[in-house]
């Protein structure tokens, strides 16, 4: 079994091409493992370029190995408040200090806390392979429960948030059956801008209510231009046609749909 912890992306890409398994924070890889990880492991956490946040021509670029705690402690615009709120609810502080935003996306859990806040930020993922980098909108990257569009030999290297998405205010609300360390029953992220009391821009996303977290484009369009109170009236369970919640141990599908609408109303109110 091989282990590598390179400090440049070039080295990492070369090693990844050999089929090594990627290790980032470890918070999803270690559960279920024995005393050590199996297979050949490529640890990405020593590459400085993967753990910085920079403003570039395309927007705010967040290195894939940025931890939840890095996000919490960074000085970020209100559009990213939802992401920071989510970061504070990923496990306990121990997990927030280790877990990374890129790992959260690659793990592709339907209940991944990072996804709804990134969806409302129009996040684009940067995938780097032997032939270079390509970009994919986040909603095209996560294609199913535990399934991503990551091609063989590729590494998710960064998440870019376009300038246009760094405006407005955001909020994240997570619903679970206990206070800490909870896998959500449902969660929502919203980012909105108001002009003269009317919604001038809005992005709504819901997680844990379908195989993948998703935006609600129809509802977003419906509430554009409305006042806050008018908008809240529009956010009803029946308006959430994009969701496909299921019955499971945590809740029923009907409850989830209803709760998602309530959470959206609260998040919109909080962000307004």
């Amino acid at each position, binding site marked *: *079994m091989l282990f590598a912890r390179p400090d440049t992306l070039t080295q990492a890409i070369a090693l990844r091409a050999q089929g090594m398994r990627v290790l980032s924070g470890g918070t999803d890889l270690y559960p279920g*493992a024995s005393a050590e990880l199996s297979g050949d492991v490529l640890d990405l956490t020593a590459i400085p370029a993967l753990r910085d946040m920079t403003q570039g021509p395309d927007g705010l670029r967040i290195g894939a190995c940025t931890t939840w705690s890095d996000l919490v402690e960074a000085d970020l615009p209100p559009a990213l408040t939802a992401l920071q709120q989510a970061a504070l609810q990923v496990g306990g502080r121990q997990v927030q200090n280790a877990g990374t935003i890129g790992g959260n996306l690659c793990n592709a859990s339907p209940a991944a806390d990072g996804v709804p806040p990134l969806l409302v930020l129009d996040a684009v993922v940067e995938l780097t392979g032997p032939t270079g980098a390509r970009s994919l909108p986040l909603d095209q990257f996560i294609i199913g429960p535990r399934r991503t569009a990551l091609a063989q030999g590729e590494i998710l290297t960064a998440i870019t948030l376009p300038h246009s998405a760094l405006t407005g205010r955001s909020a994240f609300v997570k619903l679970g059956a206990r206070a*800490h360390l909870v896998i959500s029953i449902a969660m929502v992220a919203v980012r909105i801008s108001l002009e003269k009391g009317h919604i001038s821009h809005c992005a709504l996303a819901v997680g844990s209510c379908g195989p993948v977290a998703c935006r609600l484009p129809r509802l977003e369009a419906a509430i554009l231009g409305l006042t806050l109170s008018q908008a809240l009236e529009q956010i009803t369970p029946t308006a959430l046609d994009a969701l496909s919640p299921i019955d499971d141990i945590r809740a029923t599908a009907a409850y989830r749909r209803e709760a998602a609408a*309530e959470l959206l109303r609260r998040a919109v109110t909080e962000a307004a």
Partner: protein
Amino acid sequence: MITFTLNGQPVTTDSAPTRRLSEVLREDLGLKGTKVGCDAGDCGSCTVLVDGRALCACLTPAARIAGAHVETVERETPELTRLRTAFLRHGAAQCGICTPGMLMAAVDLLRRNPTPSEAEASEALGGVLCRCTGYRKIIAAVCDTTDSAAITTGGVGTALQRIDGAAKVAGDLFGADVVPDGALTLKAIRSPHHHAAFTFGDLTAYAQRPGVAGVFTAADIPGLNRFGVIPPFADQPAIAPSPARFRGECVALVAFEPGVTPDLSDFPIHWQERPAQMIPAEAETSSHLIHDNRPGNRLTEGRVVKGDAAAALATSAHIVEGEITTAFVEHAYIEPEAGSAWMEGDVLNIRACTQAPVMDRDDTATILALPHDRVRIRPSAVGGGFGSKLDVSLQPLLGLVALKTGRPVRMTYTRQESMASTTKRHPAEIRGRIGCDATGRITAVAFEGRFDTGAYASWGPTVANRVPVHASGPYLTPHVHARARAIHTNGPVSGAFRGFGVPQAAIWQETLFDQLADKAGIDRLEFRILNALTDGDLSATGQVMQATGIRECLEALRPHWYRALAEAQGKPGRGVGLASCWYGCGNTSLPNPSTIRIGITPSGQIVLHQGATDIGQGSNTVIPQIAAQALGLPVELFHLIGPDTFLTPDAGKTSASRQTYVSGRAAHDTARALRSQILRLANASDAATLSLANGTLTVTEGTTRRDIALASQPIGEDGYVLLAEETYDPPTAPLDANGQGKPYAVYGYGAQLVELHVDRALGTVKLLKITAAHDVGRAINPQLAEGQIEGGIAQGIGLALMEEYLPGRTENLHDYLIPTTGDVPPIQSILLEIPDPEGPFGAKGLGEHVLIPTAPAILNAIRHATGAKITRLPALPHRIRAAILGAKP
């Protein structure tokens, strides 16, 4: 090679790069203070600091600590010293398994924020689970920045710090933490199905693989392959022959050479899944018998019949009828089962976590065909038990392999293995009716309970017998018809869990009481006070009650009740609820003795042979306090031995809330006997006072003083110059066919008041405050009593709001939810002391009582807030929301 700094010292290890840091610390470097509870980042017990940041050591690859500074609970810093003292002073460590993780998470917080608020501490510790304390004392300790000292001396009634506390805050040695040199690593093959036949492939070839020291199956068991906590019902194999009757059942063992990473992936076994019986109602009428000798899959039935309940209900002014369904509940102690075994001469030594060393010895000896004097059980520190560590788990497995190979052997269950293979709280389906007359006096209770006892008997008979006795609650009930039956399924084995079925019964009875009080038009508290049992009343079993403290508990809540109701008035979503408990201490109508021995050495050491296992509840402190008070010498002069089946007489099991009462009474009687011996030597009366210093025992009575030079006294066989040993067995009487008799000698009582807020739109509950009044007879150690109350309440919160074990689905601590720091509200304990003449200094049991009222009080408060009647637990948000929608406005 990985070089890093460990607690200030440079260290080098050749650990594999992706090895978990927890393994590096514990196995490669021998630092056992960091505990492993889940290997998944769910429990936080392995929290360490890496370059000042808290991390789960179980999720951290070794390579990542190269060049870093790792700090563990073994570190000595002024802030850790202060925290340890604060933990002891506040009683923040019970079993101690989560304590290292809590301490390190607290260090992380205090370095960022030296004076945290309660909310900040709660948030910072949210990643560490504790199953014993209910968190409140931990949060208080972390926020307490003073340097005051804990109480280290004092008799009965003193909030003495735990006598075994220093070890707890240093990282105590639990089942997995002492490994004999050269120990084999033992792993179990377990059934992946609820019910399945199996055949083995070539085990001989498998056993000859490199690294494999041996393979063991049911065929290797030399004795009777059958254990059980109640001998007439013993039915559970240590290693099952085909078929396996539940998911998680052990069917074979593989012993690996030390240093080999166990890999069971291609163990030669072929499974043939069979239809499983998972629903008790179906199992009752099924032709598929889990055990051939138990028709209708009925393990047993308990009943209590007093008067004519049906007739009394027919003429009652008010009647309520209802049903309640509860789930399997997992004990979720943070220490998965662990231990080791080795031979000393021809004596098999087993060091493991347990609540019942003598029962372990007896079951293991039977399975291994050994006489009792060839099995020595040496309990480790126990990282939580709550009932599940009463049954043997890995003891016979370790014993078998040590005996067969002659080599030392170790075994540690994974979290999944612990959850899948050990016992659960019985799921209950309860229905029935309760009536009262026009003045609100209870007339009758009719109770019918079906309990899913799972694949084997375990404590099913105890649940079936205990429940009907307690079903009418601590209230005067002239007519009772209560029946509880334990039904086998292919579910996990249901056994003992804090309350033996009584919490489930109380959920039914106490929620119906609220509805009945409403019908009678009487305040819910006053309704309970009106009906509370008082001295001289007859219980449901016809027992004449004495030292009955329920009325006092309810009356103690009265000011809080009316204050809480007034505060909730007019606030949407706010609710106030109440529930009571009573609970008989010790076995139900069965012998239940404890024996305690105290000796004094020629050099003047008082040695207390204390066989009661301290699983966190505090018997290592309470029993010495009782003994010291009864003897008349200070507790700090006592040296504790045990538990150890070769060194301590049988103090029974740590269950049924019996140790303070039964073993405490034995300690009391032993100490009194020893005192009498001393007084005789000095020709003094009981009015004399004793002192002991420099090997001289001084007896002073008035102006007369007599010195006894202990070294000049004749030395007995045990090496003691003075020795006493006494046994106490509660005076109970058998129950007749109608359940009439005296099942318990002592009962404890309690009542709890819950204030909460229900988010009506989401069905979520925010607990605001719980006020708990408990009659403990005599608070031997008020701080430990409070610790029991807070911890029991936390488990009651879990039972009410979130805990549901589903075999195959919630076998981890992220799908199976237990309360975290943020889920337990401030708790105000009110200790009442209605002394019982049987208890030592009047003391009654408390450990289980504390859990019983919490869940029904929460449900009653939810109904008060919203009108919602919850009939299925746990009351998850979607269930509460559905009940709100279904409630009449």
